C-alpha cells in the first residue's frame, strides 16, 4: 500500500510543525513545558494511530484476495470493473463498512458516536 493519503501521520506531522513553528515561540515561558509535552504527545500518537487502520485494511484485503496480494487500489479497481472474485463479493459492503469504522475511529470518533457506534 504505497498510495499517498492523509493519514494520521501526515496530519500530525503538519500539526506538530505548526505547533513548533507558530505556537510554541509565542507561549509565555511558564507554558513552554506544557507546549513541548503536547508536541511530544502528538509525535507518539502519530506512531500509534497509523497501525490501526492498516490492520483493518489487511483484514479486509485478506478476506478477498490471496494473502498478501490485495491492495486498496486493486480493490477500488475491481469494484469499479465489477471483477471481484465471485463468491467473495457478497459481504463486500459489510467489509467496507468495517474498514470505514476503523478509519473513522482515528479520523472522527464523534461522527461515529453520532451514527450510534461507540468506541
Amino acid at each position, binding site marked *: 500500500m504505497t*498510495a*499517498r*493519503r*492523509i493519514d494520521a501521520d*501526515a*496530519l500530525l506531522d*503538519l*500539526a506538530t*510543525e*505548526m505547533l513548533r513553528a507558530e505556537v510554541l515561540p509565542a507561549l509565555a515561558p511558564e507554558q513552554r513545558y506544557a507546549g513541548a509535552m503536547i508536541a511530544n504527545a502528538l509525535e507518539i500518537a502519530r506512531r500509534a494511530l497509523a497501525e490501526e487502520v492498516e490492520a483493518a485494511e489487511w483484514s479486509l484485503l485478506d478476506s478477498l484476495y490471496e494473502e498478501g496480494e490485495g*491492495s*486498496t*487500489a486493486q*480493490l*477500488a479497481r475491481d*469494484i*469499479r470493473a*465489477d471483477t471481484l472474485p465471485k463468491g467473495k463479493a457478497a459481504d*463486500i*459492503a459489510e467489509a*467496507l*463498512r468495517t*474498514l*470505514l*469504522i476503523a*478509519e*473513522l475511529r482515528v*479520523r*472522527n470518533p464523534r*461522527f461515529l458516536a*453520532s*451514527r450510534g457506534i461507540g468506541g
Partner: protein
Amino acid sequence: MTMAASSRPRTLDPANLDPLQRWLASAVEASRVEITRADLLSGGAVQENWRIHAAIDGGPRAGTHALVLRTDAVARLPMSLDRPREFACIKAAHAASVLVAEPIAECADKSVIGAPFTVQRLLSGTAQARRIIRDPDLAGFGPALAREIGNQLARIHAIRPPNDALAFLPLPEPDAVGAAVAEMRRALDKASEPRPALEYVLAWLLSHKPAPRPTSLVHGDFRTGNYLIENGQLTGILDWEFCHWGDPREDLGWFCARCWRFGNDALAAGGIATRADLLEGYNAASDAPITESELAFWEILGAARWAVIALLQGQRFLTGGERSLELALTGLMPAEMEFDALEAIAALEAGRPIP
C-alpha cells in the same frame, strides 16, 4: 490558512468613492448617488464583499439603500460560474419570483474600482447553519421554513431550457447520472488515495439510475448554510455559482443529504424539518411533484459528490503542495460521507427507509 484581513488585496477605496458613485448613478438612472458608508464584510479570501449605504437622488430607485457590492473571485472552484454568469442566474431566479438579493447592476469595467463587480440589495438575516439548527425556536418555525424552502426550490426548477438569458449554461447529457458518475470517477483517478467504498457507492448509483426528469435550472449548492433567515422566516437564497441545467431532484437530495444536517440528524431536510415538510412545500408549487422515496438516490449521490470534493481538497494538501491544516482535515472527511452512503444503501436493500 486564511489571509489576515489587512493583507487581502482591496479594490474599493472608501477614501475615493467618486468613480463608483458616478457609475452607480448612471446604472440606476439617478441624478446623483452618494455612498455614505462602505464596509468590507468578513469572509472571502479570494473575493471582496462590501456593504455600502447609498443615497440615491432621482430615478426609479430614489431613496436610501443598503447594498452589497461583490467583486469577482480571484480563484474559483472547478465547475463554478464566474461572477457575471452567476449574476445572470440570479437575475433569472429573481425574474421567476425566487427570494434572492435583488440584482441591481453589474460592471465589467475594471477602471471603476479596479475589478469587475456586481451590486445587489443587502438582505438581512443569518446564514450560519449551526445558529439556525440550534435555534431554540426551531421546532416552532422549522416545518414552515422547510415548506417555504420547498416552494422556492419549485420556483427555481420551473426555470427550464431553452432560456436566452442562460444560453451559456451547457445542456446536460442525456444520461446525466452516468455523466456525473464518470466525472467523479475521473476525479478519483486523479487522487493518490484509493477509496474502495466510494467506488462501491458509485457503482451502486450507476446500477440504480432513476428515469430522468425534465431538465430544470438546478441551484447546485442548495443547503442549510446557503440561505438567510430572520425571525424564522426565509429572507433569501445565496451562493448561485454552481447553477446548472440538471435534474431537479439533485437540489432536493443535496438539501437532505445526511452530511448537511449539522448534527440535527433526525430532521432530514437540512436539519430543520422532515422531508415531508420540504416536499409538501415543493409539491404545492411544482407541476412535477416528487415523492419521498425518490429522494434516497439523490441523497446518496449528494454524499458521493461531497466525498469527492473533500477528497480533491485533501489532494491539494497531499500532492498540490498546499500546507494547510484546513485542507488536510477536509481531506479526511470522505470516510464520513462514504459511511452514510453505505448505510443508506444497506437500508434501501433491506427495504427500510434511509436515515
